């Protein structure tokens, strides 16, 4: 967070000698949280933009250093609050890599299914709020109607709608609840026509096209140079998706396409996300077939994974392990691990360094919103101020993820 407000005397395109600095945010509704942007304007044209972040900084990385590995799981939920299961997943994968743990296939498939449900719900929030920013009120209501169904599924699985902490180190918190197949099937049956509804409202809508086509273009070369990932990079024509390129959690066993486009504008990014929702539905359908009704949801690793309640009451060792896990935690071997997953916003990475103690020496999250946001000045330069909202929207930032 820093402030440098100054009105520069520069020679601008229209010949004006002075530019004006406009302070957009942090309370502006279309910045999706507390983003502040200092816009230097020449008339209506943006000459320079300087995002100012940090209003939501909670020091999660520092807090992780003071928690045991299993305690820190709950902190990860709070980073990207539209993608808590994805955050749980990347953290669990990083710790498992550090430990060298192998996770049962059934748990991996359930993880995939939950991550894809989360992707759909995150894209729904994005679509609804982005359309609202650009003046299409009704889409917001429809998107939140469907998102509610997904949150209900999460509530049945984890007992929580948003901060689920469902994916834990070594597996999952709980077995899937009774009747989960019916719930998910109902959603799968409903969603294709609902996505069609959103598209009917927007895709060929002339106002929508006028507001998004040709707006906020960034070339593939620039996007890569700025480390942009996710739908923004794919809309620029590069099929870079961690699920395909560096498969994790058995994603290589699933058949799905990575949609790409070449127009690289706000409209392209919108289309990519809509298509991604359809691809996610395909993955969920396949995952449901793969998930067996019976089977383990946790790895066999005494001393790391809490033992079953039943065993704790009958076996001495389990009782000791339970006590040790919750009093002092477990200690991975010294070393580092870096894992990346594809979050709805792009490449979400988790770097953990262990010094052999029960608490991480360093826990760093590479959040896609933070890295993608730094290209915003590049995208906004030369745009008119009315398009700034569309550009911010299609990068799809979550301020909890930016500031951590």
């Amino acid at each position, binding site marked *: 967070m820093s402030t440098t407000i100054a009105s520069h005397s520069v020679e601008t395109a229209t010949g004006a000698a002075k530019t004006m600095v406009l302070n957009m945010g942090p309370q502006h509704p279309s910045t999706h949280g507390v983003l502040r942007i200092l816009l230097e304007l020449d008339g209506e044209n943006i000459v320079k933009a300087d995002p100012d972040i940090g209003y939501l*900084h909670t020091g999660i*990385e520092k807090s992780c250093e003071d928690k045991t590995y299993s305690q820190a799981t709950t902190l990860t939920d709070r980073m990207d609050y539209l993608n808590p299961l994805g955050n749980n997943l990347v953290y669990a994968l990083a710790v498992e890599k550090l430990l060298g743990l192998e996770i049962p296939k059934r748990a991996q498939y359930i993880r995939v299914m939950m991550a894809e449900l989360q992707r759909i719900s995150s894209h729904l929030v994005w679509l609804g709020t982005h359309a609202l920013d650009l003046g299409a009120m009704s889409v917001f209501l429809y998107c939140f109607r469907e998102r509610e169904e997904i949150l209900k599924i999460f509530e049945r699985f984890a007992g929580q709608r948003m901060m689920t902490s469902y994916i834990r180190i070594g597996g999952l918190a709980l077995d899937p609840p009774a009747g989960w197949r019916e719930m998910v099937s109902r959603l799968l049956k409903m969603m294709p026509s609902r996505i069609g509804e959103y598209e009917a409202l927007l895709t060929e809508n002339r106002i929508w096209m006028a507001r998004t086509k040709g707006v906020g273009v960034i070339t593939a070369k620039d996007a890569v140079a700025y480390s942009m990932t996710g739908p923004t990079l794919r809309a620029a024509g590069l099929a870079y998706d961690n699920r395909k390129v560096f498969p994790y959690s058995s994603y290589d066993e699933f058949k799905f396409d990575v949609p790409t486009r070449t127009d690289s504008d706000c409209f392209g990014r919108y289309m990519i996300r809509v298509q991604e929702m359809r691809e996610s539905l395909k993955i969920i359908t396949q995952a449901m077939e793969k998930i067996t009704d019976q089977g383990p949801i946790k790895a066999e690793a005494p001393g790391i994974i809490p033992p079953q309640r039943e065993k704790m009451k009958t076996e001495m060792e389990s009782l000791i392990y339970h006590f040790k896990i919750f009093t002092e935690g477990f200690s991975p071997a010294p070393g580092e691990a870096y894992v990346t997953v594809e979050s709805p916003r792009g490449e979400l990475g988790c770097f953990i360094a262990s010094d052999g103690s029960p608490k991480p020496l360093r826990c760093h999250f590479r959040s896609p919103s933070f890295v993608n946001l730094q290209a915003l000045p590049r995208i906004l330069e030369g745009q008119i101020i009315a398009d700034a909202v569309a550009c911010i929207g299609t990068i799809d930032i979550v301020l909890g993820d930016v500031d951590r």
Partner: protein
Amino acid sequence: MAENANQNANAVVEHLRAWNSKAVEDVVEFRDETTIIVPHALLRVVAKECRDALQFDLLSDATCVDRFPIEPRFELNYHLTSIPKKQKIRLRTRVPGDHPYIDSLVPVWLGAGWLERELFDLMGIHFNDHPDMRRILLPEDWKGHPLRRDYPVEGFRDIPATYLPGLKKS
């Protein structure tokens, strides 16, 4: 798959060794991840070579581990990804605590800009030639660098200033 990754990583190490005999100080293999330890002075040229000759076009992440009280205490990690070759590698270099300065990688990858600002803000590492070396997450009048290991988790609130000799200047 893991063997393949190792072979590819070996090719990277060999290329760098052939390019400049001093470029690789050491190579660490842990959990199928390859870490190339690079001398402090050569970081930027090695990074440039990785980008241009070895197709590491995406800087995925830049992060730092504080090994306080071991000197040199800072361990800077750059995670590189090659989209065409589907490969990942980690460059590591050490930065001393009494003189935490290192060449910025912004001339190589523009994406390093904010990642390095974050390291400056939270770890207190200064990057030479960085175009915009300001704090990013914390207020600009903040004292100290919270992610350092000698900075308490609960912060310095309510502690009389006399107990904080290190913080009087900065």
